[in-house]
């Protein structure tokens, strides 16, 4: 990096995205209007499980303004399903996990059988959405209702099969082991056995999904604008389905109104809309409405754990065994990735010698389950962190103390966990001080001793205060790769394009900061292009807390390639040795000789192909480089959370008085953005802990199909939140970055549950499932009061 320029990394630079978004001048998919554009309405199953006998499209086809009405049968031989394996795992992971994975492919529009409420079975394309919905209402289906497989537990022994070729409704089994769990459990002085349930909720971005596609017959090419986190995946699947070269498919995610994982894989509509645009020769738009989103956009969480923990009289844990079921719904778009995350993250920041995990990914007649902010980690953090509190209860130790006694100490870093990560590399926590994070979190809520005193005093007054703790580690910056292309043209600007697809993370700003530092240029001289397949040949996308690490790595590596040329050409022009050159303030110059330099603009001109170029022998024309950064493995972010709650014993309502998270994501690019990411995640976690729930009845009907029923947290539900960032650089990349997009959302459900149980300790409270409901708290109070009599 250049010495003469201020470093942008580490500064809370104001976001360059803000101006357009504040003015309402952003472009979201819904804002797009193309000449002759048609609109799609999708007809979705109202039954959880049903055989399709017939679909009658005649009435719909007769509606004025309808261009096309189709059912699954019309597409059966035309469009292939989406592969069940959108994400594949390396062999080394498979060896460690002993997986049996048979994730079913997802037919875009089924013609034979419907597997969840919300699954598409027909569609209408019309001149506007109103008319499309009118026609959609006229589509009549003849269905034979099948017995629903209502949830994961029921799926195990259900006679009904969601997919006929998956006996027992099992899509995947995973098994992982470290040490000898069986023996350790037998010899453990004490054991804890519990069942935990982490309920189903979802990403719920404020912008629902949407797709616009336009086909150009002259070039036989198609452009798809999708509200997605993964433009390159969408391109791959569209090209595959339409049998087109990827080069002829351009996928762009314009401004995207939140994603949080919910837009992190390819959905049937991404392909259907592209197909319709090509078939009809007119631009086609589909916007998911909120009802559709609740029914059809991926749900998440929904895991049932049976765990056993062995520990001694000091609270030291020797073994954790868990058996868990993932209710994956009718499909599993990202395969067994969530379950893999769960297995890998279960032990969190604790030094546990023996571990065994068995998992079944179950198919049920529910909406498909896919990663959402946290992706398998909130679930296991709940199981682990509740267990620690229960151990503390049993031993009459403070839950904080039991955590300290089990935590990996800083001198144990790097710490080998003894399990493979999803990337196939054996997990090694790279850096950090976990006990210090917990100490800081406790200090953040006023100190443990002070709180216990306050709690006691309050109890004497009949008030119930509780302290909840929750710690986790998070593998971030996962591969397999990210792509970036860096160019400097004769404008002299540094142009950076990566496969990252932001949904509000401020990537345009953050990556401009990274590139400005790499090049030693003013941030205003960096042009960032994101989420457009036409700018980067191969890319991966923004999921899994990965872009800060992976896209920065790709920008670094592609810049290195371009820098080589820049130095070679500048050395040629300046008649200096390359080793004497440095980047300074948008120029390349001879170290210590201020007057001997040329601007990047001049270098770019010197690099042009043609008669007047000034390139040395062997240096190709143009300043352009592309690199695909393949991280060695993940970096490990971590956090400790502490929150104080007070229970209204008359209504059962939980009031969070104060919430603190000490979060370490290595070196921060833009602290204000990082802070916003963590806080936003925390509030989603609080939502999941207290309000949000996707509920099904016994028939597999989703009961929460509107924002009247699916309750997102609002401004008045949010407690004071303090995020303390510690920055332990990761040794795994040159910047020291770790990822932080998901972290905030991981801990709150268990922190709240632990805090409530702490508050209600006099009543012997145990809350081992989410969400934490006021009503359940009253029941605990009643039971406690009855027992006391």
């Amino acid at each position, binding site marked *: 990096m250049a010495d003469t320029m201020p470093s942008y990394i580490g500064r809370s630079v*104001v*976001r360059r*995205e*803000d*101006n*357009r*978004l*504040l*003015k*309402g*001048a*952003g*472009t*979201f998919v*819904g*804002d797009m*209007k193309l000449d002759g554009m048609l609109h799609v309405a999708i007809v979705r199953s109202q039954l959880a499980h049903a055989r399709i006998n017939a679909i009658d499209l005649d009435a719909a086809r007769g509606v*004025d303004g309808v261009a096309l009405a189709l059912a699954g049968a019309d597409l059966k031989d035309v469009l292939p399903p989406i592969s069940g394996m959108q994400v594949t795992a390396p062999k080394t992971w498979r060896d460690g996990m002993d997986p049996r994975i048979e994730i079913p492919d997802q037919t875009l529009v089924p013609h034979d059988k419907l597997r969840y409420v919300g699954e598409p079975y027909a569609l209408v394309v019309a001149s*506007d959405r*109103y008319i499309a919905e009118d026609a959609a209402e006229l589509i009549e289906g003849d269905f034979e209702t099948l017995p629903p497989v209502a949830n994961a537990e029921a799926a195990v022994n259900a006679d009904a099969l969601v997919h006929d070729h998956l006996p027992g409704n099992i899509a995947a089994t995973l098994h992982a082991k470290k040490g000898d769990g069986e023996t350790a459990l037998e010899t453990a002085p004490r054991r804890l056995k519990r069942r935990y349930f982490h309920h189903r909720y979802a990403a*719920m*971005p*404020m*912008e*629902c999904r949407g797709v616009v596609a336009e086909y150009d017959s002259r070039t036989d090419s198609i452009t798809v604008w999708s509200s997605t986190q993964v433009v390159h995946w969408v391109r791959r699947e569209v090209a595959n389905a339409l049998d087109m070269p990827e080069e002829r498919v351009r996928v762009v995610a314009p*401004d*995207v*109104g*939140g994603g*949080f994982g919910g837009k992190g894989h390819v959905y049937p509509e991404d392909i259907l809309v592209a197909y319709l645009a090509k078939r009809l020769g007119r631009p086609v738009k589909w916007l998911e*409405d*909120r009802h559709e989103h609740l029914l059809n956009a991926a749900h998440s969480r929904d895991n049932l754990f049976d765990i056993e923990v062995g520990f001694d009289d000091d609270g030291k844990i020797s073994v954790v065994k868990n058996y868990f079921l993932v209710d994956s719904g009718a499909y599993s778009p990202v395969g067994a990735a969530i379950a893999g995350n769960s297995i890998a993250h279960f032990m969190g920041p604790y030094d546990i010698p023996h571990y065994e995990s068995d998992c079944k990914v179950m198919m049920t007649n529910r909406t498909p389950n896919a990663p959402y902010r946290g992706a398998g980690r909130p679930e296991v953090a709940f199981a682990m962190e509740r267990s620690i509190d229960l151990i503390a209860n049993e031993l009459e130790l403070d839950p904080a103390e039991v955590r300290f006694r089990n935590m990996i100490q800083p001198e144990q870093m790097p710490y080998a966990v003894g399990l493979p990560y999803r990337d196939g590399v054996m997990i090694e926590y790279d850096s950090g001080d976990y006990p210090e994070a917990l100490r800081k979190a406790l200090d953040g809520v006023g100190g443990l001793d002070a709180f216990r005193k306050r709690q006691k005093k309050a109890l004497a007054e009949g008030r119930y205060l509780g302290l909840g703790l929750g710690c986790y580690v998070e593998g971030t910056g996962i591969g397999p790769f990210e792509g970036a292309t860096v160019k400097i043209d004769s404008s002299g600007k540094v142009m950076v394009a990566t496969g990252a697809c932001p*949904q*509000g*993370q*401020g990537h345009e700003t953050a990556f401009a900061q990274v590139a400005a530092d790499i090049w030693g240029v003013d941030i205003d001289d960096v042009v960032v292009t994101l989420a457009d397949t036409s700018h980067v040949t191969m890319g991966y996308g923004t999921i899994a807390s990965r872009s800060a690490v992976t896209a920065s790595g790709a920008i670094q590596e592609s810049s290195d390639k371009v820098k080589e040329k820049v130095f070679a050409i500048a050395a040629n022009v300046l008649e200096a040795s390359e080793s004497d050159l440095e980047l300074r303030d948008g120029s390349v110059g001879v170290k210590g000789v201020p007057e001997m330099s040329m601007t990047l603009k001049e270098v770019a001109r010197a690099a042009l192909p043609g008669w007047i170029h000034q390139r040395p022998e062997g240096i190709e024309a143009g300043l352009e480089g592309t690199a695909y950064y393949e991280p060695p493995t993940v970096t490990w972010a971590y956090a400790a959370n502490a929150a104080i709650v007070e229970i209204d014993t008359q209504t059962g309502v939980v009031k969070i008085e104060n919430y603190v998270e000490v979060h370490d994501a290595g070196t921060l690019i833009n602290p*204000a*953005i990082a*802070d*916003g990411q963590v*806080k*936003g*995640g*925390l*509030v*989603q976690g609080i939502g999941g802990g207290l309000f949000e729930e996707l509920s099904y009845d016994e028939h597999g009907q989703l009961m929460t199909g*509107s*924002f*009247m029923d699916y309750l*997102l947290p*609002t*401004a*008045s*539900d*949010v407690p004071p*939140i303090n995020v303390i960032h510690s920055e332990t650089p990761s040794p795994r990349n040159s910047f020291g970055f770790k990822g932080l997009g998901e972290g905030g959302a991981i801990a709150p459900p268990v922190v709240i549950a632990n805090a409530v149980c702490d508050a209600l300790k006099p009543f012997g409270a145990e809350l081992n499932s989410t969400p934490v409901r006021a009503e359940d708290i009253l029941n605990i109070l009643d039971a406690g009061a009855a027992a006391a009599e």
Partner: protein
Amino acid sequence: MTASRTISVSINGEVLTGDAAPRMLLADFLRDVLGKTGTHVGCEHGVCGACTIIVDGVAARSCLMFAVQAEGADIKTVEGLADGDDLHPLQKLFSEHRALQCGYCTPGMLMTAIDLVESNSSLTTEDIKVGMSAALCRCTGYEGIIKAVTAYAEQVHGKPVRQESDNG
């Protein structure tokens, strides 16, 4: 089906005219007919607040009004806030306080906040939290929004926003 009508509305001081069937929602009319896509649609049942605009001086959900009901109305949308490149004070505060991430809820948040602040000169911190709970944000966790709106209230009314609640 009933015939479209020609609707004239004043949008940010400019009278605009377009055709709308009776059932067309005002949000769709603004976005699809008049091209004012700054107003966003997040739920179409009045809960999320993304489509909030100011109609005849008060904030309202444009997904719960029909275009024909707006005939002759004086409407303010997010597009009317900035004066060219010069952002409205609240827009500046939103950027300063990191009150937006994806920007989807932002137009509704801004219009909700402007009405809240400008219609009440004695807002408390609690009033602002409750007032801003009229619109949902999924990104920020609201802290920046509350800070920005509080700062705006202090600017507009020239006095500090009180901490205590005044109900009770």
